[in-house]
């Protein structure tokens, strides 16, 4: 399958300079290299929410479930439960996954559902033209908060670590190569993979300069060390001006939900027989 094949003819309507382009190509290339490594392209399913990020479903020529705002994760979990041979990837937004549907994210981490969640964290609601999200810095003047927000952002990495996620990483659209790396790693990880991607929103929250200045790659960090992961995750609180690490913060192998559920056992006899047997017991 050639590179071209992964992109549909749908008209691309992201703004010029939008970080989503970088995620698109990083994801495409990560998928491509996974396919080179043996992944069946027909087995890939992309689940998206609603927001600028979600247009990925239109733009990538792979199976997709263009879902509703905030609900990538339960859809993805279920697709994986239905058919553990599928490789399920979510492209979610920060409004989407951190505000509207935060609970699902926590539960997917808790269950270690073997899906990969990529959060296009532009720290703003793009598609609805610029309101604050849970990761906007405090004082952010969005259209719903013209006087500035009165709350601090939360740190999604900390929450994911506290929730039991077995793969926690961060990327940035200003670092395409590294981004592709963590996405590939996330897809390959057996278990719940969470990737927070600091994405430049050219129109409503252009943090290019900040990210160019502050982002650095994790080095010499032991991703097996949970405490170290927590410490690293806390280095930047999504608010203050401090170095911003990208890379894999934490990785551990635990049994996945699908492994533990097992494929439903083959039925003893036909459905009719099962029903008859159950009815017999009710006599």
């Amino acid at each position: 399958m050639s590179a071209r094949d992964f992109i549909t003819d749908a008209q691309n309507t992201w703004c010029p300079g939008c970080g989503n382009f970088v995620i698109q190509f990083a994801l495409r290339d990560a998928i491509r290299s996974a396919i080179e490594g043996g992944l069946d392209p027909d087995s890939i399913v992309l689940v998206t929410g609603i927001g600028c990020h979600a247009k990925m479903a239109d733009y990538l020529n792979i199976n997709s479930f263009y879902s509703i705002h905030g609900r990538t994760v339960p859809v993805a979990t279920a697709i994986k439960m239905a058919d553990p041979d599928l490789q399920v990837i979510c492209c979610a937004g920060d409004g989407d996954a951190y505000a509207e549907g935060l609970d699902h994210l926590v539960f997917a981490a808790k269950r270690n559902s073997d899906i990969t969640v990529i959060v296009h964290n532009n720290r703003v609601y793009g598609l609805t033209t610029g309101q604050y999200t849970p990761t906007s810095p405090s004082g952010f003047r969005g259209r719903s908060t013209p006087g500035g927000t009165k709350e601090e952002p939360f740190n999604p990495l900390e929450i994911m670590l506290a929730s039991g996620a077995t793969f926690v990483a961060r990327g940035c659209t200003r670092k395409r190569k590294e981004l592709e790396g963590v996405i590939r790693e996330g897809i390959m990880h057996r278990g719940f993979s969470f990737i927070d991607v600091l994405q430049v929103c050219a129109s409503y929250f252009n943090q290019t300069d900040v990210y160019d200045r502050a982002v650095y790659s994790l080095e010499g960090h032991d991703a097996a060390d949970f405490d170290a992961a927590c410490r690293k995750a806390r280095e930047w609180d999504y608010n203050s001006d401090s170095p911003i690490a990208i890379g894999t913060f934490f990785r551990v192998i635990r049994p996945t939900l699908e492994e533990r559920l097992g494929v439903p056992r083959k039925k003893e006899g036909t459905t009719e027989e099962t029903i008859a047997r159950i009815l017999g017991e009710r006599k």
Partner: protein
Amino acid sequence: MTEMSVLIGGRAGDGINSAGLIIAHLLSRIGYRIYMYFDYPSLIKGGHNFAIIRASPEMKGACRREVDFILALNQDTLDLHRDLVRDRTTVICDSSRVKATGICIPIPGILKEEGAPAVMGNSCIIGAFTRAAGIPWAVLEEVFSRHLRKGLELNLKVARRGYEMASDHSVIPAGDSPALPILSGNEAIGLGLLHGGLDAYVAYPMTPTSNLLHFLADIADRAGLLVFHPENEIAVMLMALGLGYAGKKTAVGTSGGGFCLMTEGLSLAGANEVPVVIVLGQRAGPSTGMPTYTGQSDLHFALHAGQGEFPRLVVAPGDPKQAFTWSSLALRLAWRYQVPALILCDKTLCEGYYSFSSPAASVPRIDDAPAGTPGPSYRRYLLTDDGVSPLLFPGSPGTVIKVNSYTHDEAGITTEAAEMASLMTEKRIRKGKALENGLLDLPVIAQSGDTSSDKTLVCWGSTAGACSEVGPELGFRVIQPVVLSPFPAEKFLRATRGTHEMVVVEENAYGQLEMLLNRFGVRADASVRKYDGRPFAVEELRARLMEVVS
């Protein structure tokens, strides 16, 4: 052979439901058809619980306002149900807790002597009942051994003590019909779904459908089912759509409050055409209301939930046989036409127990939507004559399968073009018409009574139980539309032709079925409505009907 009713009552936590079920089986074994109503407040312990078991030669679906036996494990059982007691009523009670004349058994003493736990008081009083009703001991032995999960021997001992303390009091003549299975409405729905091809069930517990979750979880292994209970109802619904997208025939179950949280997913199902079945158990609302009491006040919500317009199937079975049949059909129709299907039931049906003769063999066979051809030219929303697009699931070789909540083109890519929007709306309308046609040969309306009578009683859901008993007695033909969307207007008009006087009976305050009928030009002459959370009793309905008819 005549009919009879037994009431057993005690405190929440006394195991009244199970005791009632044992009594039901005793009466079933000696040749009766059973209906059991279980009444309990929304709490775990401490309140008053009771069950009424009605045994008749023919199937019934409602209680009477008099009982032949009253088994009292607490004083409330006598005090709160005095109106059900007649001269002939045999009272059997725990003499340590209840002041009464009748067969009084010192249950705690017996339990103590036998070294049995308090919960076995039930067995003791059931033993006494067995003797008083003239049921052979062997029947009790058989029922106990089939239906007690543990402690059979001790239970039998304790029952025997009760049995021996009573005397043949009011002997029930035995019938000769062989015992049928006794099922709750929830179980009938569960088995019907299984019959329809269910692969997965996802639910968050909520009365009155929690027991459907429990039942399916219990049989999951042998039925090869995936049963999952996630964090909330939003997840439930979205998981169902994920499963459906991946080809698993999936149902969910809930009640009003949980259904609210599913409506966004329901609209999604309407738009992305992923089939799903929703079991919606009604209870007394609004809001939390009375969680363990019944109601029929979610009909219009079920008909119209979710933004935008899309075809949906809504069926409201009135008894377990209909529940089985229409649960199977709902799942199959959902997959045939790629529409969401709602099984609208209520506490009375869900948690009532009924003798059940399986309609499995006679449920019409409906095929899934045609399968698509894998390959690069597959389009998930292919525009077809009947609006139904061929189905494929992810993993199909060389095929890209896109479903989409946005207005989309045939390939599932988002569009905002006016023409494509119209085309896709018209596709959905055609699908709805195809569904309507698909229902033509199905038993969408149930009838009883004299079909040439000029007095017609219309009802829906579990209220059909009382109506189909009382209606014919009072000279009504009784019409129960089982399918409520797409509403079978023509068949309904045909079924009611020649009606001079129409009464609509419902367990709600606003007359929701009547509102629906009004849309089709049908006007009722009178309405009988009840909204206190309790199902109609036979005598009550009779009196209410006699008040309103000329």
